[in-house]
């Protein structure tokens, strides 16, 4: 629990705090179980299903949905869309917390988490895409941390250190985009090694491109989604500039998301054509593939477009939710649902309640840290000492 928060004149015993506290207690108990009984004690993982919810959701979805950080900072600092400036800090914060949550969840999933640095310091498995993902995630987490420090330093009143860091903004942004391009795509490329296990409709040599392009969509939609939530719960923390720019950000990001989704839809169809997988569309998995492609790619693409044309902020916000669900669906399809599709249903994987609880636990920690930070540091507003320059 984040302990005392600055919601003045409010008791600690809010329904939110009670639920969060309960989740943390249950999570702590399962953590103990995980490190005393092993994965067999808490998960439904098996020799046929070595990767479960913690990879499919926490890693794949976590990284994709934390893409808002690089997308927003690139838009503002590199493409010069200054109107969206107030969206940068919240996006970087959620990006950083997202990656931190991914790394936290990985500590549950891998057998010996204290060996996670081994691939870099002991023996380098350079032919593995996981090596690339690991290196990029570790570096990018560092980059996001440095990118976020100005807010913390302003809060702490360390002016000189803060000015030093802001001088690195462009370098960090470029570095962040390079790293994000690499590991977002490499997460898809992880599955290139298993053409015999992943359903042909999802397996494609374009998998890395799909993951990268959809991460842009995920980043844009998450910024929209998070800004809706932040608006609702932390509206009192936002300054006039943030509120004023919010409409601009919403319309601009929705337009970008719609366009990117159109491109994503196109390359997905091209992927079917390249591997001549049309015949699979008439099967059960084909139907499921079409649900994903039409319901969670084509539909949000169209809805975003309508929202932008009509300047319908409400529609855009709901479409952002739909898009985020679509990205989660896609990652779960690749990692769990269409993976091992040949196995008889009795040998298929379904997460245990404890696996789900750990995922919820990790997300809860993220939300609590987010709340701790935005109620204290200049994230949703500008610090009075540093106007218009963060």
């Amino acid at each position, binding site marked *: 629990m984040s302990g005392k928060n600055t919601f003045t004149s409010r008791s600690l015993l809010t329904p939110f705090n009670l639920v969060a506290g309960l989740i943390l207690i249950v999570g702590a108990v399962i953590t103990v179980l*995980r*490190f*005393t*009984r*092993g*994965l*067999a*004690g808490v*998960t439904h*993982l*098996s*020799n*046929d299903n*070595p*990767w479960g919810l913690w990879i499919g959701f926490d890693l794949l979805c976590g990284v994709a949905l934390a893409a808002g950080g690089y997308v927003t900072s*690139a838009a503002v*600092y*590199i*493409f*010069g869309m200054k109107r969206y400036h107030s969206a940068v800090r919240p996006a970087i914060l959620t990006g950083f917390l997202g990656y931190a949550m991914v790394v936290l969840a990985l500590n549950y*999933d*891998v*057998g*010996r*988490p204290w*060996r*996670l640095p*081994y*691939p870099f310091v*002991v*023996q*380098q*498995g350079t*032919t*593995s*895409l*996981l*090596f*690339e993902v*690991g290196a990029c995630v570790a570096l990018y987490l560092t980059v996001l941390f440095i990118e976020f420090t100005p807010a913390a330093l302003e809060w702490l009143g360390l002016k000189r250190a803060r000015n030093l860091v802001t001088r690195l903004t*462009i370098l960090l942004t*470029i570095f962040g*985009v*390079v790293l994000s*391009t*690499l590991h977002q*795509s*490499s997460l898809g*490329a*992880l*599955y*290139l*090694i*298993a*053409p*015999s*296990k992943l359903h042909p409709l999802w397996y494609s*040599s374009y998998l*890395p491109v799909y993951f990268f392009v959809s991460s842009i969509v995920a980043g844009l939609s998450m910024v929209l989604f998070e800004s809706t939530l932040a608006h609702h719960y932390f509206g009192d923390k936002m300054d006039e500039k943030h509120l004023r720019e919010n409409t601009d950000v919403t319309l601009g990001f929705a337009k970008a998301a719609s366009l990117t989704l159109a491109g994503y839809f196109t390359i997905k169809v091209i992927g079917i054509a390249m591997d001549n997988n049309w015949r699979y569309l008439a099967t059960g998995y084909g139907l499921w593939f079409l649900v994903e492609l039409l319901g969670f790619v084509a539909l949000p693409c169209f809805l975003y477009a309508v929202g932008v044309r009509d300047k319908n902020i409400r529609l855009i916000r709901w479409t952002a939710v739909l898009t985020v669900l679509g990205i989660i669906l896609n990652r779960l399809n690749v990692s769990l649902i269409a993976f091992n599709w040949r196995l008889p249903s009795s040998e298929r994987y379904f997460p245990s309640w404890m696996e789900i609880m750990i995922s919820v636990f990790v997300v809860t920690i993220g939300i609590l840290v987010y709340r701790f930070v935005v109620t204290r540091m200049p994230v949703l507003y500008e610090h009075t000492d540093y106007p218009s320059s963060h």
Partner: protein
Amino acid sequence: MSLTRRKFLGWMGAAGAGAVIGKNAAASTTEHFKGYPNSFAILHDITLCVGCRSCEAACNKVNELPPPDRPFTDLSVLDEKRRTTAKAYTVVNRFKNRKVPQQPVFVKKQCNHCLEPACASACFVRALRKTPEGPVVYDPSVCVGCRYCMVACPFDIPAYEYDNALSPKIMKCTMCYPRILKGRLPGCVEACPREALTFGKRSDVLEIARQRIRENPGRYVNHIYGETEMGGTSWLYISGVPYKETGMREDLGVTPAPELTSGALSVVPMVVGLWPVLLTGIYAITQRKEKVSAEEKAAAVAEAVEKSEAQACHVLSEALDKAHKDALKEKEAAVHQAVKKALAEAAGSKAEEAAH
């Protein structure tokens, strides 16, 4: 580890290693890596296997695995399909024989020791490697336990100690690497009472397999499983029934596993090399645009200022002019009046004088 260190030093002195890289890289696009010469392989003649599970028992003993739930003499375990586990590096499965129904087919399953192992390609800490002798071996001292090797393996072989909380290992057949190094046969090969398993140099074993197929027409399917599957394996199979009827996949293709990811891996350095150039370029263009628009703005402001200044000047001069004129007029009027007054006064005084 010495090889590792040498390779690592090789990276460090990339320039020095240039000769080595150059030589191999030049050939890499067309070169076909044929695997280690003189590496060993095992031929499993499926037609000879009777499902006695002697190999399973021997494997268990040689590798000091925990005792099985049911003894190896219990053949009822064959009623269900099994896979390799953390406690069993090899399992024998029974399949229906469609040609001769009263003679079921028994197939031994274990790590196939690929020539280009998918597990080794996937491992990010090189815990798995192909040895020059043939076996694919695992080093638990560096393994992180990510289980990507299990995802990668097309034969579903590596198993994991899920119930081990703090030091779980990947468990799989080692082809009895320690025994091979000592010049001994792998446990299962030694134990097989039917000589369904043949150990030898891969090239020799392949020749034996071809010979059996050639000399016994009708007995075998004309295909040696493992000769080309996934780029070839160090376990080879010959069978009397189609392989897919024995639970073996015929759709794996002949592409070696590392090739599946080489495309994606080759894009990585291109992104690192060109993205900064592209992004800095876009940034510079944005900055330039901003500068130009700022300059244009400044110019427009300057012009406006000039214009308004000129206008102001004009107004001012007009006003001055007017003021001047007014002043003159006033002066004139004043003079006029003064003269008038003076004249009147003079006239007045004259009249007064005249009156006196």
